[in-house]
């Protein structure tokens, strides 16, 4: 098929045949190469985080992908089509317009032995976000997260000036043999880092002020109830002793019942980072 081989009869058939064969080879090769090139480009552009979140979100059981408004009962049944990013969600906007303004009074939600102050917004990966005067936001781990993890052995926080992406890994923690990573609730530049010893982990200058994708006010309680069920399922799947689901079970007792070896699985499930 190439020169330098003796005894080959070149015919029209040969040319057509080999032509077709090599076209196929070229097509396959170019496709492969382009795939490689494109993936390198999107790696540079940090597309990995988006993809990671998308596949993780896709891996969530259908009921865990339930829309926030299904939790509040504003909607009958809805699966979130946007990967928990409600900023482009028209349904969300529409419902918010009808929603009555929150009556003042309740400062925080207390349930299952946890306190969820309502001065802040919550991400479904169990982080909270508080708007500060200076336009930055403070990011921390909510009660459920804190109790689950307890005191981490080590925390690997992003450097100051690091650019956080929404739903990318905000920071990592180690507890025993379990490596945990926390989903970032906002996108922005890290301006200051705290840690487990402080009440917060990160101060971030957000890229956009719009934080509509985070839970707030009346949504917190039903979400919390859901999360407790989810936690119990996670524990059971991880092979922990089944808990009485009578609402009396406190988070502490649940957390205590979580065997060391399956902490990673349980926390991963709760932090939406399997």
């Amino acid at each position, binding site marked *: 098929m190439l020169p330098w081989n003796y005894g080959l009869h070149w015919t029209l058939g040969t040319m057509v045949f080999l032509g077709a064969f090599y076209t196929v080879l070229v097509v*396959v090769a170019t496709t492969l190469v382009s795939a490689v090139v494109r993936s390198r480009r999107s790696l540079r552009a940090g597309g*990995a985080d988006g993809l*990671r979140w998308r596949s993780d979100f896709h891996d969530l059981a259908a009921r865990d992908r339930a829309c926030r408004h299904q939790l509040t009962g504003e909607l009958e049944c809805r699966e979130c089509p946007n990967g928990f990013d409600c900023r482009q969600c028209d349904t969300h906007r529409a419902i918010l317009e009808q929603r009555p303004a929150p009556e003042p009074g309740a400062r925080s939600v207390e349930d299952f032995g946890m306190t969820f102050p309502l001065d802040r917004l919550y991400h479904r990966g169990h982080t909270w976000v508080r708007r500060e005067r200076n336009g930055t936001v403070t990011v921390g781990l909510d009660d459920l997260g804190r109790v689950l993890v307890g005191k981490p052995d080590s925390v690997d926080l992003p450097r100051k000036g690091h650019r956080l992406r929404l739903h990318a890994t905000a920071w990592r923690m180690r507890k025993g043999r379990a490596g945990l990573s926390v989903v970032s609730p906002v996108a922005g530049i890290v301006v200051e880092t705290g840690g487990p010893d402080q009440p917060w982990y990160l101060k971030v200058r957000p890229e956009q002020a719009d934080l509509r994708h985070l839970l707030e006010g009346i949504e917190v309680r039903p979400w919390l109830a859901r999360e407790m069920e989810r936690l119990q399922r996670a524990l059971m799947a991880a092979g922990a002793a089944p808990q009485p689901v009578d609402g009396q079970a406190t988070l502490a007792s649940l957390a205590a019942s979580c065997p060391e070896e399956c902490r990673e699985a349980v926390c991963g499930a709760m932090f939406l980072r399997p």
Partner: protein
Amino acid sequence: MDRRFIPTGVARCSTSRFLMWLALWAALLAFGLYSAGLCLVEGLNQTHMNNRFAFGLWIFLDLTVIALGAGAFFTGFLLYILKRKELRGVINSAVVIGLMCYGGAMAVLGVDVGQPLRAWFTFWYPNVHSMLTEVTFCISCYLTVLLIEYLPIVLKNRKLRQVPHFLVFEHELHNLVYVFAGVGTFLSFFHQGSLGGLYGVLRGRPFAFREELGIWPTTFFLFILSAAAVGPSFILLTTWLVQKLARKPLVRPAVFESLGRISGLLLAAYVLLKTVDTIVWLRRTTPRSGFLPAQYYAWKPFGIWLLFVEIALFLVPMAILLIPKLRARTAWLVPAAAMACCGVALNRFVLTIQTLALPTLSFDRFVYYLPSWQETGTFLAVVAAGVLVYSISFRYFVLFPEEREL
């Protein structure tokens, strides 16, 4: 302990049970590899093939598994080119099956030739008149394509995809899968066809020789059609089998329904053309070559009954698969699919083994052939390897995306 590798949201049997299952097939594979090794080291005298039975069990195996493996390319064709979305539920499984079948065929061919080290000569001194050249080129290309198609399934594994590079590459590859599906279809069409041509061109074997349409004998097209018809049936069959083994539904019933219908329609087309071809062959081709059709079936055990069984094995499943009432019932659907698969296997058997067994000269004698244990072992190695690959893929990769929803 290997839970973190198993896709989320699906239940799999315990690791120990899985390992026992693997061990079972690994043992078979080991035996098979030993036999194959014997054939490679000692030479083909280890087989019971001879100068009259130049081809034996292995070629029959190749033709059959490749016909069954056609499910891979054809499902891909239906899903990506013809946009039959419901087939998304089985495409991954189909790809793995295709990979097993084509890989197995390739491996066996490597043992079957007398000088495997010279296999590349075909690429070097290709004789474009030879169907085998076409086969070699197509099978090697298509195997590459299948590997590429298999790659995303692997990379999507829960642990692997935590490596960002894999994650991204998988995503990009999956975006381009249409190209591979297209190329794969093209290649596989030709491969199936040239496998048919393999025997159809044998002017010296009137039992196999067929009239030419264009540059190819009719068997070229009949093989494509029969493979396309039976491929979906085989996917259906395997999916059903896996469901039974896993003791849970893996795909929506609609998938079975649709696979069955497609299979039925194509079978109908095949039966029609095959009938025409058979008549032309018996009334025109054979007399022209100076033979009498009666001769073909004069030899026990290859009596005329073989022809009728073959016809029945295509007609009956066709009927079942075309009647919606019956098709809807698994008790009918699955046996029908199984029959179709047996039909295509018998068709390949007749074309390979009976062709070689029949004498051509007036003083020839009818030669019997039974594979040696080395041949059978090599055959089993392919089966075992297939089962192993499939089992591992089923446990750690997402072969049936809809499984979680069911």
